[in-house]
């Protein structure tokens, strides 16, 4: 009887040892393909890294320390990775005044500088579309590669589109490994160390908001913003999906997102949807807002609105 018990306990192998045994051979044979500079131990630890939500705070801290070392070795620059959790009573939302937007793409590049996107190949989280007034929201007539000498151009609307941070997201449902999920403050995040790069979320997203690292991210030490968050703007890997996180590294510390700060015409509003005094709530309550592809039932937390008459900007 006693012996039985002991044997049973021995059989209780935890997930790590089980995997270590089963995959040890496979991992070593595949090692030379990748990361020639990383040590075997580093590879081992990153290979068996748990899903972010499965880790305890202590484990998260350990992982973050290792990642900071890895990044420093790779980019020759000290990078800080935060793991701040969502604040209670906060649900982030966004408002964008289409009548103000002049289509200058300042936000696109402010976003890139803040969020450490790959510069070459270039990854952009915000895509600005141009529509003729009469074709507004007719996707087949949207122009992404417009390039005039001066903006705004008479007769056009501009529509910046990034992640709509849906309440009912299609992408997180599609992910086969739960590598992307909605945080309690409403932000959809990706664990770049858990994503297998199958890109099913990209097929599912109705807004083209998810982007893939098709090649090794081209990022130099000079480009890097060292203030990062694990679920946000820390440097990404080749072969994983990334997306807008409402600048999680800023917003969770009560700051505006980079695009809000950069917008030269004040078209962008950001805040807590649960706070009746926030700018977003003001816009929602006083403007005629709309959401993109509302008929799909994704319930974006990204609201667009028109503040003044179409001709107003150019007539006066």
């Amino acid at each position: 009887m006693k012996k039985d018990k002991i044997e049973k306990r021995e059989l209780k192998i935890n997930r790590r040892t089980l995997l270590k045994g089963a995959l040890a051979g496979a991992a070593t044979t595949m090692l030379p393909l990748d990361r020639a500079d990383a040590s075997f131990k580093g590879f081992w630890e990153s290979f068996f890294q748990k899903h972010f939500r499965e880790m305890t705070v202590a484990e998260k801290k350990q992982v973050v320390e290792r990642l900071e070392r890895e990044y420093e070795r790779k980019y020759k620059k000290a990078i800080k990775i935060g793991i701040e959790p969502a604040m209670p009573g906060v649900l982030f939302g966004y408002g964008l005044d289409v009548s103000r937007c002049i289509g200058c793409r300042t936000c696109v590049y402010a976003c890139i500088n803040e969020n450490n996107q790959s510069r070459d190949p270039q990854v952009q989280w915000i895509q600005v579309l141009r529509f003729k007034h009469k074709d507004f929201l007719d996707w087949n007539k949207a122009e992404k590669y417009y390039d005039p000498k001066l903006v705004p151009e008479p007769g056009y609307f501009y529509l910046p589109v990034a992640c709509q941070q849906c309440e009912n997201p299609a992408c997180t449902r599609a992910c086969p490994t739960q590598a992307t999920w909605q945080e309690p403050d409403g932000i959809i995040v990706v664990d770049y160390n858990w994503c297998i790069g199958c890109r099913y979320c990209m097929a599912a997203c109705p807004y083209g908001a998810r982007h893939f690292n098709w090649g090794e991210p081209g990022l130099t030490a000079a480009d890097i913003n060292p203030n990062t968050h694990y679920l946000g703007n820390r440097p990404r890997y080749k072969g994983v999906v990334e997306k807008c996180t409402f600048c999680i590294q800023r917003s969770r510390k009560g700051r505006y997102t980079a695009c809000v700060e950069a917008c030269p015409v004040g078209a962008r509003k950001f805040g807590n949807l649960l706070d009746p005094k926030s700018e977003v709530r003001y816009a929602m309550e006083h403007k005629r807002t709309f959401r993109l592809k509302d008929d799909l039932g994704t319930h974006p937390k990204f609201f667009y609105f028109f503040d003044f008459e179409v001709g107003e900007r150019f007539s006066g």
Partner: protein
Amino acid sequence: MIQTIKNFFIAWGSIFKGSAKYYLWLAFLACLMAIGVHAYIGQAEHGLIMSAMRDQVSWGFYISNFTFLVGVAAAAVLLVVPAYVHHDKPIKEIVLFAEMMAITALIMCIMFIMTDLGQPLRVWHILPPPIGMMHWPSSLLAWDVLALNSYLFLNIIVVFYVLYKLSRGEHYNMKSFIGFLIYLSIPVAVSIHTVTAFLYNAAFSRPFWSAALLAPRFIAGALSSGPALMLLVFQVLRKVTDVKIENKTLFRIATFITYAMAINLFFMGADLFKSFYPGTAEGTSIHYLFFGLHGKTNLVPYAWTSLITSIVAFLLILNKKTRENFVTLNIACVLMIVGIYIEKGMGLVIPGFTPDVLGEIYQYTPTATELLVSLGVWSFGAMVYTLLCKFALPVYTGKLRFAVEGKEPHEVRVRRPHVEEVPEEQA
């Protein structure tokens, strides 16, 4: 038990005994595989940027091949049903080769998924807890992993068990557990292609994929192209080995294909009408597929090739004269495979992404890396099938028999092992 393992290795030895032609064929496939591996190493090093896929068209040639091959795997059911449910003797004799083709197609499916992953080393994350974080039942991709692997293991168990029984000169009993597995493999075969269709259906922001007819069309297409491939393979088999397959059996399969193809074309017509007639924005992708959009027409040749080859193939196989003439039958089979390979591959995956969700048209054409890696996977599949056949043949034809304890060694000459059935099966 030990004897069984020993016997397995004796049988295994038969794959090394072959003519010069056999070795030449294997060497040829090995060369193609080496080219594929070389291309894949380049992709692993530089990333999927070596493909033509981009954010706008985020799945391409690999997933196209995957989708077609799921159909080939599912198609084995067209022979499994008459063989095991209706005890159709001539079909039952060759059903083993159809099941082995399903095994091969599934292995290729898994390889195409692996080559498409950005982080293939992390694939274990898709396993159920406590190892991975499988997102079941939400993610259709998780369902696909379950369905494909279940079908793969079912077929492996069935094929090897049947061979084991045959090698001892015994018969398997459909009322035993293996019979249950064989029956189970029928709905699972249907499920793999259904779940794959649902995978596309689930991406609800892409109107081209959101037809309720998608799953039925997948099955009808699979039951035409898969058996067409089998018809060609069976003819090769009876030529290069001493397996006897009668013309009558092949023509019988051709009749099945005729029905499947008629249904497939009907479904296709229904889908085309529904997409074209209303002229709504939902039809934009299909318009791009058949006529191009804004002067961008790179899928147009694919679309018309697929449509024309499918119709010509159907006419050839519909007419009894051309169906029972091997020249025209083979032409029909090749045309049908080409037509459905395009329709279920490039013609399905790419228009789903074009125009993309924000209206952009990115013209996708596979790169050399994608073509060569795919060539590697296809030649690997051909090698797996060749070796499986080589392994099975001596047992199948009765040349190889193992003594069973307490019994005299079984007589060697059994030309058609499946014909002699146990009485209870006839009931």
